[in-house]
């Protein structure tokens, strides 16, 4: 009962009218653009895409770069930072912390609310993208179900990671910038480095679970888009099982740490009033 109240109130904070608009726009961005590209290319004299092959190509490109590469990451960063630290910064967290509710339940409720938002937007975007590029048949041709599953797993992993970051500081801008740099600089630069550097990027594990091969001919050599999923033949190969293991343990480990930190830290600053 109390958990539901906590969860819904957190969700309500996240999905305030002002923010909801941005979330919906974010969900619509990928499918709308994909449809636009599809129509533009079919209308032009030099069709860019072959009807079937390239519709799937479109789905893969947008799913990989937009939904996995952008929507998932940015929403995880923003919602996990926003849901804890904005309240800490505005000090309204006091009201929650002095209620007869255990702190881990507060954090967990907010964690799930944050994941709900991220997943809802990413799923909505995926479904619309499949419909927009491939029509109803898209659900059989494109790996929609698999993508949705991996998105959920990814949301768990990223949200846990950023939640841990947030539970350790009292100011919102620092984890925001750190999260953005991690999500967009680290996660794109690291997999491109030679050798086994990609092992320290969450995104490479996600791409192993949900590979989006654009060209079936070169799956073996170039892996998926932009080289995610392994180019170096030497040394270490990321298997599906390993990916599952890494993502799940990051999600669980970071969450447990975040709960431990949140339950024992003081979230009020120095008294100014006297």
């Amino acid at each position, binding site marked *: 009962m109390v958990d539901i109240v906590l969860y819904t109130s957190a969700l309500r904070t996240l999905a305030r009218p002002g923010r909801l608009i941005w979330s919906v726009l974010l969900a619509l961005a990928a499918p709308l653009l994909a449809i636009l590209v599809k129509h533009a290319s079919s209308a032009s004299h030099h069709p860019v895409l072959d009807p079937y092959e390239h519709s799937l190509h479109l789905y893969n490109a947008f799913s990989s*770069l937009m939904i996995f590469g952008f929507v998932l990451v940015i929403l995880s960063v923003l919602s996990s930072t926003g849901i804890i630290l904005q309240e800490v910064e505005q000090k309204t967290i006091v009201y929650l912390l002095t209620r007869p509710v255990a702190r881990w339940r507060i954090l967990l409720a907010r964690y799930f609310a944050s994941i709900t938002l991220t997943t809802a937007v990413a799923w909505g975007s995926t479904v619309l993208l499949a419909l927009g590029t491939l029509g109803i048949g898209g659900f059989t041709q494109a790996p929609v179900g698999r993508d949705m599953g991996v998105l959920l797993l990814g949301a768990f992993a990223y949200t846990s990671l950023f939640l841990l970051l947030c539970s350790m500081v009292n100011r919102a801008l620092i984890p925001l910038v750190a999260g953005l740099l991690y999500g967009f600089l680290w996660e794109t630069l690291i997999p491109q480095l030679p050798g086994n550097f990609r092992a320290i990027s969450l995104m490479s594990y996600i791409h192993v679970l949900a590979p989006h091969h654009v060209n079936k001919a070169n799956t073996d050599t170039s892996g998926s888009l932009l080289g995610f999923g392994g180019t170096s033949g030497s040394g270490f190969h990321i298997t599906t099982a390993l990916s599952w293991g890494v993502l799940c343990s990051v999600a669980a480990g970071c969450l447990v740490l975040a709960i431990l930190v949140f339950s024992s830290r003081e979230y009020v600053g120095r008294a100014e009033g006297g």
Partner: protein
Amino acid sequence: MKKTPPPVLNAQTSPIADLSYRGYNGPLKLHAVRWWVVALYTIRRARRSVGFWVLTGVCALSYLFHALGFYFQHNLSSLSPSMHQVFAQTLFSVMNGSLNEYAVMGIALLLGAGSIAADNRANALMVYLARPITRTDYLAGKWSGLFLILYSVIAIPSILYCLTAMTAFSDMHILQQDHWVFVHILLAALFPAVVLTSLILGISAWSKSAFSAGALFASIYILSNTIAGILGMVLFRKQPDKANLLSHCSLSGLMDAFAQRVFHFNMKQPMLGRGPFAFTDTPPVLLRYSLIPALVIVVLCLLAAHQRIRAVEIVKG
């Protein structure tokens, strides 16, 4: 201005001076330079921020990274005309490469997101605007302060890089190749600094908190990059011209386009589905494609910010 203190007005007849409150009758500066006070203050604040120095460190890292890269490339390949292309490319990367680009975005976010939103929230706007300064002075000060910081963060590593290359590889005759290389750097650095400063201030003025301003700014910045990147990559095989144009339809794309125009070289874009080291050459796009959108963004943001800067208290009573 003469710096002699003015005589005490109501000189006391008593031998004991009145050390309690007195009015101020010293000199006053012209009203026209008061925006500079705000700018100086913004810069002073930034110098104390740890986050700012960390991100500046990332910028420095990008400089080292590219300098090393160029050193190896230079030593491996014999001197050829294409080396100057490579130099231009790396110079461009020092300025606009993703490492630097994200660090600069981070600085803009860290310093700019709260600059107006937090003043407003902390009730400081009321105090500042109760002074004899106008809203325009205030905005101009905030703008130029942030602009100068971003401008130096972008321009200084590039200039250092250029100087390093000139001293290390005197055989390249960089100055002979491009007499105006320093002017070009200064010019190219102008563009991202102006656009980012205006955008973040516009957003900050309309946000309730530094966090929401930062979130919105980052979303716009990264989303536009992602979209433009995908569009460019999806289209490049059949219609390279259109693809090239589309790939510049983002904030960082605009900056790339301008810098490319200034340095005049073909940029290497990653190719979709061709593995990590597959790149295609893209020629610079016309100047107006970068200047006009940027101008629109800057003007809109500044107008929006100006509209929003008001001396109102948050708690109504």
